[in-house]
């Protein structure tokens, strides 16, 4: 970090310390865009809810390219936004460099842990939520084969896949889990054509329930599954309504709650790492009128019992990110 930048940053934060109590919060959306019907949209809904309830206003920036991350964070911090919330693991390394330059600004990062005094890291136990939907998938599967389609191949997405596979195997040890990743670049979050093609390939291998954890690519997965008469599972937001009666459930990741809480806390951020797990209702599965016919009361009761066991600690779901390996699935 150059001295000039530090000086500028210090000057800006000094100038704004007076108005800090009145500062508006800000949110930065990652590359998928705030209407990705999934992760970023959930974050947007949380911010919207906060604005509607408090009548406050907030600033937002949507990333258009990788290069903008640092620029966006600095701009928001320098113009006095506080707290600055960002969605996505990809901000991790950038925030590690930016946060020390703005000690008076509170940063909140979702999906990644950044160890700085003024950063609050919010992480979800996606493996637990994925375990539940994996359990449901195996119950709903007639061919004993379920599929998983990830977006960009990163440890976080493998955590989804690993939890899902464990859940599916727990429901029925004979279940075959087919897992594919869309790609290794951020473009993999926005390639519905490839998502659809992967889905067709998995269905031809016998999969009849396909779980998409792939941002915008998931739109193609859900579409291809609905076209082929297979079931699909949405992710992050409640995607049951995208193809009513064809989406088994959605693995809810309450990014909206995380953003809402961060905005509500304002400049009184707790700091450290905040884990939103099954017990804190940070993850879960979605039920509404669109999938009521697909999930029998029996199935729901079983899954709720499993969820209770995970909360009690009776079942431990292996976290891929803890040791970069998965007992139930071979990547």
């Amino acid at each position, binding site marked *: 970090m150059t001295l000039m930048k530090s000086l500028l940053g210090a000057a800006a934060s000094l100038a704004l310390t007076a108005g800090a109590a009145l500062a508006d919060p800000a949110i930065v959306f990652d590359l998928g865009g705030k209407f990705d019907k999934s992760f970023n949209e959930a974050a947007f809904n949380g911010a919207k809810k906060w604005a509607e309830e408090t009548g406050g206003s907030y600033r937002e920036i949507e990333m258009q390219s990788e290069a903008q991350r640092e620029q966006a964070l600095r701009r928001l911090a320098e113009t006095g936004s506080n707290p600055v919330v960002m969605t996505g693991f990809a901000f991790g390394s950038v925030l590690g460099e930016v946060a020390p330059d703005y000690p008076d600004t509170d940063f909140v990062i979702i999906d990644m842990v950044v160890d700085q005094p003024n950063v609050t890291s919010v992480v979800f136990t996606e493996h637990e939520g994925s375990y539940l939907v994996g359990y449901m998938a195996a119950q709903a599967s007639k061919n004993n084969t379920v599929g998983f389609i990830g977006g960009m191949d990163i440890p976080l997405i493998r955590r989804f896949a690993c939890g899902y596979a464990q859940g599916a195997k727990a429901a029925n040890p004979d279940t075959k889990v087919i897992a594919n990743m869309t790609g*290794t670049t951020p473009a993999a979050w926005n390639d*519905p054509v*490839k998502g*659809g*093609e992967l889905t*067709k*390939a998995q269905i*031809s291998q016998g999969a009849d329930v396909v779980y998409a954890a792939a941002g915008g690519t998931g*739109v193609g997965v859900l*579409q291809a599954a609905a076209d082929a008469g297979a079931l699909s599972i949405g992710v992050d937001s409640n995607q049951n309504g995208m193809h009513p009666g064809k989406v088994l459930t959605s693995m809810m990741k309450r990014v909206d709650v995380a953003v809402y809480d961060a905005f509500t806390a304002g400049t009184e951020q707790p700091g450290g790492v905040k884990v939103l797990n099954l017990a804190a209702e940070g993850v879960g599965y979605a039920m509404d009128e669109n999938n009521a016919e697909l999930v029998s009361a029996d199935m729901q009761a079983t899954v709720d019992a499993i969820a209770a066991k995970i909360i009690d600690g009776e079942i431990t779901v292996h976290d891929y990110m803890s040791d970069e390996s998965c007992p139930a699935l071979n990547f």
Partner: protein
Amino acid sequence: MDYATLLQIFDSTLRLATPLLLACLAGLFSERAGIFDIGLEGKILAAAFMSAAVAAVSGSVWLGLFAGIGASLALSALHGVASITFRGNQLISGVAINFLAAGLAVLVAQSWFGQGGRTPALIGAGRFEELALPFAESLRAVPVLGPFYADVISGHSILVYVALLCVPMTWYVLFRTRFGLRLRAVGENPAAVDTAGVSVVGLRFAAVGICGLLCGIAGAYLSTGLNAGFVKDMSAGRGFIALAALIFAKWRPWYALGACLLFGLFGALESRPDVIEAVLGFKVQAQLLSALPYIMTVVILAGFVGKAVPPRAGGEPYVKER
């Protein structure tokens, strides 16, 4: 690996090769006439958006197709005006078109539909249905060829067959008609064509127009055939892979079909890592497969496998001597 798996891979190959093939032939016309077109990607994207948007509003996929072709033609016209009429740099104009299309599609989609740069999901007549060819089911009993016909050849949207038909048509137009001869000549030696009293500008505009038409079909296939709606950046680099295929095919239509099918096969295999592992006996990273088209193009360009010579006057605006 059984026969059914093979059929599934070929089926997927054909679907993935179609947008590449259309874009590749589009580039072929344009580049054979001496206009390099790096803006294939942008045209595909604009067409994908326009066809999905119009199909969503009107409920008719055919209106959508025409709108998509229209959008692509408009960008072609822009490229033509910039690089033919005003003799601008063709590469820069192409890059500008890519940026313009990527930004404009999302912006317009947001202002029309308010769904964050998407179009609503298409239903019913808003999409191209999969076409069952005649006798597909009754011939299925024929060993080997029957299932091949029923599963691979039959059951695609009509645009796939249009794309395949475009290959012999392109060959015929370019190599068996007077128009094609002149078009190729204008890409090799425009001065000679001019001396013969044929309009260089007119021919080049015609080529760029055909390029726009084919890109329009490619884009419409992406959003209304393969998918059911537009998502931002959904072309995902297919325009650039088509350019790679064009170099790989050394600017010839039948070779273009081969190159696109090969690249489509790589794409299809990417979805089936289990098959590669079963055939080769070891695990191949999917990333290698997605990089292969580019690697092969570099190998070709480096001259290891034959030589790829582009049209001689390609990239240069034609200036009449005074």
